[in-house]
């Protein structure tokens, strides 16, 4: 009986530890599992090339701090609304949600569009990629390195030909960690994003491997 209790407590603690420390879906369960977002945002529509039915928008159009800050940031509602006030069907449920979040309403009677910024509210997206709290990852440093060292880029989509290039635009380096997001209907995690992966890449490319590089 005592052994059973110990095992139960040990298992619970271990699971808690795993849950807290790793903070990611475990690879054994598969990376493709993802979460539902409050508004369906199809990267395929926005980021995929025109030849594949997308708009070919650059990643930095929305994630505009990725080249200058530690965080890539998700865009402000205002940025989404700047296009979608006019672009996109007024029948779409997702676009309706987005417009209402940004304070844009359509009168049911005369179909006139009314803007009331006081009624705008933020969107709480579900996080897909998350590193533990004790890791400091600076997007800008990685983007800047990879744009000037294309040979270090991993997971390059087949449609891109960067062989022999001296430098590439920032939007072509994201795949190293995030995979081909432009082809994902719903974004999911591609790489484990664990310390081993970071250290391997740093060793391969001459990056710092001392603890304080990431844990400070």
């Amino acid at each position: 009986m005592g052994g059973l209790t110990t095992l139960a407590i040990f298992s619970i603690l271990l699971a808690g530890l795993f849950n807290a420390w790793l903070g990611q879906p475990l690879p054994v369960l598969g990376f493709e599992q993802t979460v539902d977002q409050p508004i369906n945002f199809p990267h395929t529509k926005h980021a995929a090339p025109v030849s594949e039915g997308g708009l070919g928008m650059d990643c930095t159009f929305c994630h505009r701090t990725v080249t200058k800050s530690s965080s890539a940031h998700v865009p402000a509602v205002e940025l989404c609304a700047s296009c979608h006030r006019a672009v996109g069907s007024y029948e779409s449920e997702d676009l309706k949600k987005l417009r209402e979040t940004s304070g844009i309403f359509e009168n049911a009677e005369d179909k006139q569009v009314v803007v009331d910024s006081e009624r705008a509210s933020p969107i709480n997206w579900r996080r897909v990629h998350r590193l533990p709290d004790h890791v400091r990852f600076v997007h800008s440093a990685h983007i800047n390195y990879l744009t000037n060292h294309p040979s270090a880029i991993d997971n390059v989509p087949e449609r891109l030909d960067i062989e022999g290039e001296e430098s590439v635009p920032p939007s072509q380096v994201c795949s190293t960690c995030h995979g081909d997001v432009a082809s994902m209907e719903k974004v999911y995690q591609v790489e484990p994003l664990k310390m081993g992966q970071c250290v391997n890449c740093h060793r391969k490319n001459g990056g710092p491997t001392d603890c304080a590089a990431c844990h400070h």
Partner: protein
Amino acid sequence: MKINRREFLSLSGKSAAGAVIFAACSIPEKELVVQSPVDMPEDLVRGIDSWYATSWGEGASGDGVLVRILEGRIKKLKGNPDHPVNRGGARTNLDRAIQLHYNPDRLHNPKLRRSKDGILSNTTINEMDKFIKEATSKGKKIVVVSNPTRSTEGWISQKFAESRGGRYLTFDTLDQTNLHEALYELFDTNEIPHFDIAHADNVLSFGADWIENWISPAQYGHAFGELRSGNRGFFAHVEPRFSLTSASSDLWLSPYPGTESEIALSIANVIIDEKLVPEAQINEFLNKFPEGKIQFGYNPEDVEKRTGVSQEKIKEIAHKISKGKSIVFAGGSTSAYTNGKFNTYVIFALNVLLGSIGKTGGVILNPEIDKENIGGSTKPNSFKDWQEEIAQWRAGYVDTVIIKGVDLVYSMPNSLDIKGALKNVETVISFGSMMNETLNSSDIVVPDTTFFEEWGSEIPNPLPGYLTVSLQQPVVVKEGPGATGAVSYVDTLLNLEPSISGSNKSLVKKVFDNEYKESNKSGSVIADDKNSFMNGVQQRGGYWNKSFSSEQKKVRLKNPYEFVSENSFSETESNYGEEFHLIPFSNVLMDGKLSNVPLAQQAPDGITTVAWQTWVEINIHQAEEMGIKEGDIIYLKSDSGEIKCLAYPHPGVQPGTLCVPTGQGTEKGGRYSEDRGSNVLKILSGKTDENTGAFAWASTKVSLKRAGGSEKLPKFEGEVTAFPVEPGVPVLVVKPGQTAHEAEEENHHKYQESINFRESHGISHSDDHADDHGNNMKENKEKNSH
């Protein structure tokens, strides 16, 4: 497997505990959320700062302020170099205001006292709203009180009070009614004029500590820098206390308190007798004096006996200010005696004699500003108004008092018994971001926003000579209870009174929309439409236009003797009696506004370098005679109460006068202010200038009693041993009885001796210090020696 009842319960308990641990160790839900803010997240870019132009309305001077924001947090405040009032200058306490916003004692909950004898306890926003609504419903007799302001907030306060048939009053702790009254008599305007110190050749000021804290210190500090950067100018200051302004002057005169007007009239006497200015100016000045002359007895010899200021110095000032562009002004303690208005009027009238009115480098009249959506008061209510108002409260004639931006209970002398009066008011509603004595005596405490979280527009007082409207804009999101943020004072009033249409933001915008219409494409912002104009205003921190200035009309001189009131100090001629003149002064803590700000508490006073305490400045010779040493515990007793201070003997205090700083001694505040030092404002006697009803806050007499003990005075002075700034140049030591010049000569002589000795013995000067300062220093010295 058999499980008995005991084992089952034990296992259930452990599983529950495990589940709790599991849940506690899991990733908090908020960590799994990534938010798209409504607007562009400019402030949230890590490592990149944003600067916003706004203003700090608390001091009424409407200084332009730049705020540095990093990742949505305020990091630094500094003066806005673009703003015409302070031109990049900042009050000494500006940077400290950050801790008004980020303070561990910031109120996060509304509080409610359910019965007059009950205690304040936390309540919800909804319940608070319900009680406020009840207390301010139509039919209630309402009074709204705020700090002196000319702003949208002031306008809303005024409109709200009017909507209920009530009154709106403003309270200025160190009452300046006499200044306003004297200026009104002379210039026929309530606007304080612009003192063009920057372009003057000579400045003569009385009582006002304008370099540290009087009215608009950032504006005057910048102007003083300009004055000193040209031909250096001449600056004389008259004040019984050695303030930072006294310390910055070329000639400091320390008169017996209350006798400043005699010095001014004596200076005028010398100028007239010796015909130092054109006759037309003399005639204009004397025009309204009885029989066309200054009364008998104002020659420097007689005045020396009555004021303690030497006749030579009076004559020296008269000669200096008669040449070139001169400006004379008064304020502070000079206006705060029982004869304050007479003092102030006579001193300002000297500008007529000197021909300084309306001229560059003189006194320039400011335009009178009357703007839609901006209100409040150009001139705060006098002490007499307040005495009458508090009598109404005490008699139970007022149902609701709404207080914002002023700590009445802390700031009013004991003689007014404001606490007792508030008990007789049915509901007292106070707004504040931290507890203070007034909030603690209220029935409803509302956790207020700070100026970093609120829209506002303000007309600075004094203006820089032309139209200026400062903008205040929110630079961070609201702190406070839950997701709702702190409760905005103006929004609360607007919600209660639908007849004042619009939100605070829209009312502020309307102010600048009107400016756009009137600007005629001139001024600090030029735009094609009102939205672009507003963008420009937000970028520059306000709107100003030099073409909207005042006509420099003629002054309306009157017989100054009409304003004579008795000087309550005049009978103490010896200045060595048992009674002392008490002169309170404010420094970085202001009137207690910043007393719960640790950055302000730790700031050493400009003259004494004391911090964290209440000290009393006493003349060093008088202290010696009385056997008082630094740090001795002293009790000061007036007819209004008693306080405890630590002695600070100082050569720069007029014998017979004691000077005590304001700001400490809060009974109910926060962790940094409570039970620290003493509140000198409490023991001020309720004397007024009978002519104006102004509070004569510098006319209190106190007796001094030693408690017998002593404490170490926390001060910066003397804590660091002097060391030579330049290697080899000795520290200048001035011995008792020696002048600085003599000490310099003596030291120079020693320095020269040491050089001669080194040269004669072949010792290189730089060799001695190579170890300390490295080779670079050595090279520099060798270069310099060549």
